[in-house]
């Protein structure tokens, strides 16, 4: 059907008026602001372990469409983002490190905090391989927890490492030399930082305080010295673990969500690994462990609403379902992925709080010269 020029002109005009009215209305209601709203741009730093989440199109779209927020989040080490002047001088509006202690460290660095709140939690775990985990069970260091998942008596393992025990003596055959657990560099990256805190507390028998640090810091230094080279980021260490296999990376420190994210990235690859790999990745949950909380630090008031957006239920569910982050209280979301069902422990009861900031900073200095 042909359309007359006049009718076409009137149509255009009506559409334009409706568009203008709609645009004004939508701008005042960011929760239903679609493509026409004016989203707010926020710049800040986030730990590398959240890079996948922040790049996720569904997450970005939810933040923009429902909350009117677009994030320019640059990757930085959790420890360095709250201490390094070169980063802080760039005037970030928010920081998103991966440990609650770092909120305190940020305050000590002179960061003026408008608001802070824990968004996710992810337990610190040990990653290993089924045959190595079975060896540790045989040696009395670990226990199976139904399915290819384990709990591990971290203090016993640490004592064996400090004593220079061989893998063989610990029940793990086929690995040459002395046992070691490898983490990231605690002066750069949060998983190494938290593992240092956890190690110090376990060795002292309680959450470590400044006055008892001198008693055990030599042993903590031994654990870290025995690691040899320590990668600068958790993501890199996990990549090395997966790429290197059991002979290269028998036992490393990571976040629980890293395996979940890796599996979800490529489900077919995971099925191939489950079916045919000579050794398969497993999680050993330390008893006790520490929770890596991911507190969002809002520096500029404008970033306060980012906290409300992130603790929204649909976002938390997405973070669990696609990236393996537990919610603010350490509980898992609704989704149950059959690929991972038997590898995760849902309830984690034995949790140690992290030592406070002055203790951690003193420990970091000690480890820097270990």
């Amino acid at each position: 059907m042909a359309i007359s020029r006049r009718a076409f002109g009137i149509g255009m005009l009506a559409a334009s008026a409706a568009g203008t009215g709609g645009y004004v209305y939508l701008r005042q209601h960011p929760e239903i602001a679609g493509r026409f709203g004016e989203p707010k741009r926020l710049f800040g730093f986030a730990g590398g372990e959240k890079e996948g989440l922040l790049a996720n199109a569904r997450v970005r779209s939810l933040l923009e469409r429902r909350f009117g927020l677009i994030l320019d989040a640059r990757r930085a080490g959790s420890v360095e983002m709250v201490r390094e002047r070169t980063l802080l001088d760039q005037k970030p509006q928010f920081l998103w490190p991966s440990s609650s202690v770092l909120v305190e460290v940020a305050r000590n660095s002179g960061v003026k905090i408008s608001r802070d709140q824990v968004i996710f939690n992810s337990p610190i775990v040990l990653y290993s391989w089924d045959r190595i985990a079975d060896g540790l069970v045989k040696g009395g260091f670990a226990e199976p927890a139904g399915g290819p998942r384990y709990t591990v008596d971290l203090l016993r393992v640490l004592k064996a490492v400090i004593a220079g025990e061989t893998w063989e003596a610990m029940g793990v055959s086929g690995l040459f030399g002395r046992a070691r657990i490898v983490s990231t560099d605690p002066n750069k990256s949060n998983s190494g930082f938290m593992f240092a805190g956890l190690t110090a507390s376990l060795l002292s028998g309680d959450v470590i305080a400044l006055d008892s640090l001198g008693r055990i810091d030599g042993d903590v230094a031994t654990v870290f010295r025995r690691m040899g080279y320590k990668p600068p980021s958790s993501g890199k260490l996990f990549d090395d673990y997966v790429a290197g296999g059991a002979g290269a990376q028998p036992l490393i420190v990571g976040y629980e969500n890293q395996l979940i994210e890796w599996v979800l990235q490529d489900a077919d690859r995971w099925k191939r690994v489950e079916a045919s790999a000579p050794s398969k990745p497993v999680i050993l949950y330390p008893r006790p462990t520490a929770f890596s909380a991911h507190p969002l630090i809002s520096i500029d008031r404008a970033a306060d609403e980012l906290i409300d957006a992130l603790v929204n239920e649909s976002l938390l569910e997405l973070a669990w379902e696609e990236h393996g982050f537990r919610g603010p209280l350490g509980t898992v979301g609704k989704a149950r992925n059959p690929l991972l069902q038997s590898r995760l422990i849902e309830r984690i009861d034995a949790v140690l709080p992290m030592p406070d900031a002055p203790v951690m900073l003193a420990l970091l200095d000690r480890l820097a010269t270990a």
Partner: protein
Amino acid sequence: MNKAALRVAAGLLLALALGACSAPGPQFTILSGSENDVLEPMVREFCRSRRADCSVKYQGSLDIALALKAGNDPGADAVWPAASIWIDMFDTARRVKSVKSIAQMPVILGVKRSKAQALGWVGAKVTTKDILAAVEGGRLKFLMTSATQSNSGASAYLAMLAAGIGKPDLIESGDLDKPEVLATVRGLLRGVERSSGSSGWLADLYREGERTGARYEAMWNYEAVIKETNDKLIADKKEPLYAIYPEDGVSVGDSPLGFVDRGRGKEVESFFADLQAFLLKGDTQARIAATGRRVELGRAAPIKADPATNLDPSRALTVVRPPEPAVIQKALSLYQEALRRPSLTALCIDVSGSMKGHGEEQLLEAMRFLLTPVRTREVLVQWSKQDRIIVLPFSDRVLWTAAGSGDDNDQTAILTKTLELRARDGTDFYTCGARALAEMKPVLDAGQHLPAIVIMTDGKSQGAMTTFEAAWRADGRRVPVFGVTFGDDADRSQLDSLATLTGGRVFDGTKSLTQAFRAVRGYN
């Protein structure tokens, strides 16, 4: 709107979309270890699909890392060394981003099968300590890249050092201060017959040895490079290498490809991301695995084991943990200054008339760099007191000779004399080469030094190649000749013939002096 108009509009849209897809890609440079040259066709294939102008420059992993030091310009958009530890150690400004491992490459010892048989290693479990014992007993010599330039040499050296200490699983700080350890490793490095600056070039050197009759016995290199070398040796009906995987642990290079942020914008960065994704996708990973490389769990299946050569990329390995960066730095300085097999280097320097002007300036600047310890130390090519240096300036004849050790005072004395030279007369580097052999003979006969003749010239020589060739053959064909070219219209053809004859190489000194010399020093 009628259907015809719709079709026209759709056609227009499609044309626009296709036009957007086929816009030419960026000019893109990768700085890579020479062991990756077998993967270059895959990189080229991707670049062609994007109509991008890609170039791959090859260097040793430590050279790549040094180019990343703050204040240096790596002159590349991506780096692809053999192991990420070097990026972490030297890229303090954190300019390298999005690093991902493309393959896993264990460093092993390939031993000529008949030699392995004689040593009783075929089908046996061999440790680094056994290798040490064979070297110390004079029963084994090997090729190994320079530990201060290339990851495979550094890895082999660190593994031998760890075995020497009796702590093969990890060297810790303090371990390097014991004098008996240094004695052990000094003995071990006596096993180094020839060296080079990067692993792919070392493999070339091994095969050239088969061709020229030098006949080397073994080489430390990546499992995949040993496989490539064997494929070529078998095709040439030569004896292959038998793979020795030391039981007490091997080092593994993770072949990281990372983006160098030089502020060239989003287009270049996203081109890099796509290239990396292309190299990591299943089909490409399967092709990479077919070269004998190990790839990440579940990405592709490794090639089958070969009982004849003992190569088996699916074999589980105990992996040596790299030590702390501070320990590595100390170990490398020790290698360069105390442990490295000392070198005997004759420098034939061209001061003929054709070098006048720019060539002469470049040459004297080269000598200033080469004989100033504070400058050579910066890029790990310093001389040690055990090294022997002979300088022979030449035109149509050798003007004089000056010899000394790597001692600072000796270097100063030779440099002072050299800086008085001025270019004139004709050119004959063949005579200079023959004279160099005569000067080297006493030290050469003692058998403790790694020899090399380095000819620094604009490349155009009178005289005859036979002058040198006869002397070289009479001397037992022991000394490789390297060329470094200078001047505005350098010609390398005559130098190439000398290098091919003797198992040396020719480097361009006009672009980067330090790189040319690091390359030469990699071989001696």
